[in-house]
């Protein structure tokens, strides 16, 4: 027992899907259990923190952190685990670039009035809002302040590797963990594990053509051809701007990729990469003789069929994008 390497798993602000992805290793859970001594896991957060503090630095072989950072406690735990771990891996889209909860960063004003005063099922005649401190007959109750902004793990600590995906596919989780278990050489620090180095299009079996598109379709507007590239058919498929690794699961069921594996190797900003990819296939008609304003108006017209560009291009990567979570 004593010589088994130690594994710790910490869950910051996440939905629980990453845990299910680990549970979905199914039979391999037993292999994971055989390879590691689990010293820390979400359920031990408070009670075991002291024990973690007491461990020698770098004594935990591997720590997986999933979820974005929302609270002070999330950040503190990330720092502590970084100090105690040889390898720290950001697990899943939220740890990597904020994930879907980071869409909240688009709304810096905060949600309180909308949720507590304006909801169709919230009559709230007294206009009560959650408060930092409430006096009740028996004493005082405290409530931590609402924290709207969500940050990726790397904003707080150095992250050795990340396993992308919302959540990572179990097959790929195993591919990422197996070399660690086997003690095999790992790729350069900062790389993605359990994913490819290209884009989802590379593993998508749909037929691609050199085609220009003059208008986008929302998913409910057309029934796409089952064989042909979705983007060629005018659906905004994030395949060109998304790292491969999942096996192009969504296009396989005729749904566009929404980008959950984050940007491809070497690309920092997934949304910018998507705009660039679209730029090369947009058909805005002949432009000779047009002024820059007229060209811009044509582009706007085509993009007009896609009213929520931010939510579409940065669905999983807003907190990690060059925009740092704030759009103008």
């Amino acid at each position, binding site marked *: 027992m004593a010589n088994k390497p130690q594994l710790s798993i910490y869950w910051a602000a*996440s*939905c*629980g*899907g990453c*845990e*299910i992805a680990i*549970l979905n290793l*199914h*039979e391999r859970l037993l292999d994971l259990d055989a390879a590691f001594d*689990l010293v820390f*896991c*979400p*359920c*031990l*957060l*408070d009670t*075991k923190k002291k024990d973690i503090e007491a461990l020698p630095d770098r004594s935990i072989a591997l720590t997986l952190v999933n979820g974005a950072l929302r609270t002070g406690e999330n950040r503190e735990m990330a720092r502590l685990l970084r100090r105690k771990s040889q390898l720290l891996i950001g697990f899943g889209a939220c740890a990597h670039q904020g994930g*879907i*909860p980071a869409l*909240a960063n*688009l*709304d810096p004003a*905060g*949600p309180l009035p*909308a*949720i*507590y005063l304006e*909801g169709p*099922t*919230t009559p*709230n005649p007294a206009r*009560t809002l*959650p*408060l930092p401190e*409430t006096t*009740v*007959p*028996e*004493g005082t*109750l405290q*409530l931590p302040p*609402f924290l*709207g902004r969500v940050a990726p793990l790397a904003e707080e600590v150095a992250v050795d590797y990340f396993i992308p995906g*919302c*959540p990572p*596919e179990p097959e790929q989780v195993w591919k990422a963990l197996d070399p660690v278990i086997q003690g095999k050489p790992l790729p350069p620090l900062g790389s993605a594990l359990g994913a490819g180095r290209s884009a989802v299009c590379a593993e998508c079996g749909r037929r691609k053509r050199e085609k220009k598109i003059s208008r986008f379709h*929302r*998913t*409910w507007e057309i*029934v796409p051809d089952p064989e042909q590239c979705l983007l060629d058919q005018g659906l905004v498929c994030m395949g060109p701007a998304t790292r491969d690794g*999942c096996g192009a*699961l*969504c296009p396989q*069921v*005729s*749904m566009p990729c*929404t980008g959950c594996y984050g940007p491809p190797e070497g690309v920092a900003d997934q949304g910018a990469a998507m705009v660039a990819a679209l730029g090369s296939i947009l058909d805005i008609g002949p432009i000779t003789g047009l002024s820059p304003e007229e060209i811009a108006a044509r582009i706007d017209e085509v993009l007009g069929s896609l*009213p*929520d560009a931010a*939510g579409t291009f940065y669905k999983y990567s807003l907190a990690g994008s060059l925009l740092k979570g704030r759009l103008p």
Partner: protein
Amino acid sequence: MTRLTIDPITRLEGHGRIEIFLGEHGEVANAYFQVPELRGFERFCVGRHAEEMPVITSRICGVCPEAHHLASVKALDELFGVEPPPAAKKIRELLYMAFFVTDHTTHFYALGGPDFILGPDAPPSERNILGVIRKLGAEAGKKVIACRSRNHRVIQMLGGRAVHPSAGLPGGWSKPVSEEERREIEAIARQNVDFALFSLAAFDDLVLKNPAHLALVTSDIYLHRTYSMGTVDGENRLNLYDGMIRVVAPEGGETLKYHPREYADHLAEHVEPWTYLKFPYLRKIGWKGLVDGSGSGVYVASPLSRLNVAAAMATPRAQEHFERLYETFGCRTTGAGREPVHHRLATHWARLIELLYAAERMLALATDPEITSPEVRRMPETIRGVGIGSVEAPRGTLTHHYETDDRGILTRVNLIVGTTNNHAAIAMSIKRAAEKFITGGTVVEEGMLNRIEMAFRLYDPCLSCATHSLPGAMPLEVRIRDRQGEVVRTLRRDGTG
């Protein structure tokens, strides 16, 4: 006045906290259950494309993303005014039944069930999935893993992904089912029926035939006479995917029956300043605080409440077990209807009956000739501007309400999730447990911690889910403080026991 703080680590809906105030004679003056975190989905979804909601709202909960995905597509059907073809509805329900089988399995064996299988006073280090496997044997452990595995395969086959599926569209489903897939799913459904019967037999042996456990199930520690809510089909039988919402009074008899799109006429939510989570209640009866009885609008939406509102089960084997449950509790049927069961520990039993129902229903759908029809989409022709959809999530009725502009961009979002429905009831059960185990200033440490844990697990692993995943006992920290906030004593339970 002395104050007790219990801080369980829970993440899915935030980090729940219980504050217990003791009165002069050491009796429980009051207990507050606080949810100190808010993620704001209802707010940040405004501005998004409505059709993205099945994918976005899945991320509210990675444990039950299928429930959000389906409530969301049903809201989109309404929003775009389009009725999906029959095959699409059946595929959705088929996926949903596979999900229910795996979710209820996870809950029974890993989350809530250990309390029963091992007994509530077994050491915390034993009351987890590994302890369950030790008790039931390695074979049973393999069965549980295999059941989760094969049903996630079905979810991926039909929905594109095993966690956070992607195939839902307004007016239908993105992909039909091939004959080959259908055959595989049929075989899996048959295995599920066997597995559900095996689980009910285990429950029978370990709980119903064990006088001490049975006494606990039928004891009044979590007895709350509240309204019950659930979804029923045209014959008032349980349905998890679609139907009318039915509410039954504490003494039995139908109080309300409405289409999910009328939910806001019947439900309202109370706001307290000391928690981020709202308290839903029956609007016409009103919010009377954390009290039960027919004069209080508090209701419960859970596996047990769903059986309480159902006249019968739509599948034969589940019906047998359903009858047995109501016989065990001696519920009479009067002119008004059958008396509901209010012993909340019976929720675990009800969950297994639903497991069997879901398996049988899955088999029925997998053998329905229409399931392989290629016609799985109907195209929307208009944007109505409002769409409301609901399903029965494992933890209660789940409602999604969207409003959009004429481009289908969301302008308003309201969600009542499974967990939230039971907020008042959970708070009441916690207070009851505290009262039972704290008298005259004496705290029965282990007993109280156990019972408070059980109160969580009964209703809603979504408030405590992470804490119960592998190796799993719920960590609790109880701080006893005097009125100045000084800690006079700390009770602690380690997750590892």
